[in-house]
């Protein structure tokens, strides 16, 4: 099948998804969680049903800024607040005991403002180091720099898709960027490149046996690996969907982020990395003529 004929279509689809993401990023930005912004996140189990507005007002009376209160279901509530010290923590508990009876602190996270910038820096370092390592590895294994560059570009494509769509999810469903999102982001790198290498491997094998131009080899390789790509993604998607639906509130958005990344990673191997490779070859050809 002549997959490479429709390269423009693939680039258009990718471009459109990324454009939506970038628009969302520029308009609404990312919904940063306490890990990045600083602040407190407290999950309480409260005996009696409380009104979230009432509780918010009472806590704010004590001079503590409340960002949001969310009922997680059952008797548990998630409070997002400014950074609190021990004294404030006690007075919040006191307020809730007044309105809700017995109160149990299930989870308490308090992060100072100095942690966020450090996280971002470390994440960028990790991204860059991983990208360079993968670039070198592919360039050596496939004896060609353009294979490496195309794979890394596809990888950045997936990161950008995830970042953009997650910003949209943050705006629409209050999905928060936290430590786990960073992990998802970095995992996507390996996913993306995993799939790309499988397609590349087919190109490499046919090149050795049959020779021929890259355009035809690419078409052959994409055809041969297509079913495998879909089937493999299905197995990963099954695990992630189960995790997103049943895994609980802490892990839900992490699973969804990985899900976006998996789908994008599966798409980007035959439809971004390989077309880029073919286009590169074509441009090189035109220049040498």
């Amino acid at each position, binding site marked *: 099948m002549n997959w490479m004929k429709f390269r423009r279509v693939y680039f258009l689809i990718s471009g459109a998804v990324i454009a939506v993401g970038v628009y969302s990023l520029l308009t609404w930005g990312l919904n940063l969680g306490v890990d990045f912004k600083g602040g407190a996140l407290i999950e309480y189990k409260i005996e009696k049903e409380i009104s979230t507005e009432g509780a918010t007002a009472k806590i704010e009376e004590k001079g503590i800024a409340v960002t949001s209160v969310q009922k997680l279901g059952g008797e548990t509530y998630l409070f997002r607040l400014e950074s609190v010290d021990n004294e404030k923590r006690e007075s919040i508990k006191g307020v809730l005991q007044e309105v809700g009876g017995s109160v149990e602190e299930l989870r308490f996270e308090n992060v100072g403002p100095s942690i966020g910038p450090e996280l971002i820096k470390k994440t960028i370092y990790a991204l860059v180091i991983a990208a360079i*390592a993968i670039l070198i590895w592919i360039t050596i294994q496939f004896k060609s720099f353009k294979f490496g560059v195309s794979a890394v570009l596809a990888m950045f494509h997936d990161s950008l898709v995830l970042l953009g769509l997650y910003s949209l999810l943050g705006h629409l469903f209050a999905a928060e960027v936290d430590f786990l999102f960073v992990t998802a982001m970095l995992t996507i790198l390996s996913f993306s490149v995993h799939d790309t290498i499988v397609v590349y491997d087919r190109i490499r094998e046919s090149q050795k046996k049959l020779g021929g131009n890259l355009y035809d080899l690419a078409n052959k390789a994409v055809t041969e690996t297509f079913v495998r790509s879909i089937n493999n993604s299905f197995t990963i998607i099954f*695990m992630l969907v189960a995790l997103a639906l049943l895994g609980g509130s802490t*892990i839900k958005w992490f699973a969804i982020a990985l899900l976006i990344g998996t789908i994008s990673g599966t798409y980007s191997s035959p439809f971004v990395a390989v077309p880029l490779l073919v286009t590169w070859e074509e441009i090189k050809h035109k220049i040498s003529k």
Partner: protein
Amino acid sequence: MTPEKKLLFIILLFGVALFISLPANFTLFDRKFTRPDLDLRFGSFEIKKNFDLIFGLDLAGGSHLVFEADVSGIPDSQRRESAIEGVRDVIERRVNLFGISEPNVQTSTFAGKDRIIVELPGIKEPKEAIELIGKTAQLSFAEVSGEAEEQTLIPTDLTGADLARADVTFDQTTGKPVVTLEFTSEGGNKFAEITGKNVAKQLPILLDGQVISAPVVQEQITGGSAIISGEFTLDEAKTLAIQLNAGALPVPISLVEERTVGATLGAESVERSVKAGLVGVAMVLVFMVAAYGKLGIVADLGLIIFGVLTLALYKLIPVVLTLPGIAGFLLSVGMAVDSNILIFERFKEEKGKRPTSDALEVSFGRAWDSIRDANIATLVTAFILANPFDWSFLHTSGPVRGFAITLALGIGISLFTGIVVSRNLLRVFIREEKK
């Protein structure tokens, strides 16, 4: 080795791994089973190991605390480093007072900021711990000058740093609790000098400027150890010993991050992820049979062996399992079948060209290149995330690491089950079919 022998070896390995990965107590068909712990003895050599999964703070409950040290008062970088080490030692001593099993105290430096990370598994009252750990408490011994009415305290150069340890013991004649002090050799000399000057006078011990005890010097003490006796209750003596032991922090620290998870929430998370995992695995198992028929059954067997081996390795290494760690494991289940899918797709192609058993061997050989290259790329990323050499410019703790470790282990084991296990299973089955 023939494939049959290899298969036998795999079954044996599976049996051992299954034994290790079983929970300590479980019920099957209404019968209760208990898995015994390993307790082997070869002469004087003894192996004792209980195969329990170790859960991280987010699953078992506990506190993760990050303190930042204020070293602005120390311009010299070398002295700054030793000050941070000092802080760590003092915090370690303070943490040990809580009697928590396996507390963890480590330092981390990034962009000129010195941090001390304290992990307290299973702690019920983190507030008290934070207060005690964060106390900058300056311990010192002071001389008393002047007469009864207008006494003033003059701090000496004998401080908490000169004290090696303090303990509670009982006076052999009166049976009352006393606190024994042991000084460092330098501290012992200072103490001898000070006590020599102050016989029959009080020698108050100050913590943050507050007198916590004011023993009277009976005679010059030269041995480097001393006893504080008095009308202590046992609790008072213990508190004094704790205060003395905890000493003083060389530099002030402040709490910049706290994450505390209650044990109930942790248990709920475990339950939920196990449920999610079972549902996910069931879907994968069904899908593989639906897509590849008999071959799918082989892949499913491989996957089950993968799961059991992984669990056993978690227990043997041991891996501290966190919530992201569980996610990493579940993800690696999804990836584990990938090598099988690659081989099976290849097998479909090759079957048309040559006899079945040849096609199988060719498929394994051809698929290997891509399986190797792809998995090494994933391992590279996992390596950077796990940061095993503690490079300070990368993430050194927290969920990222837990995730990376289980993911990397999963990939390693999936290579084994995907290649060795399924290959030999298939060889045996295909040979049986030919007969």
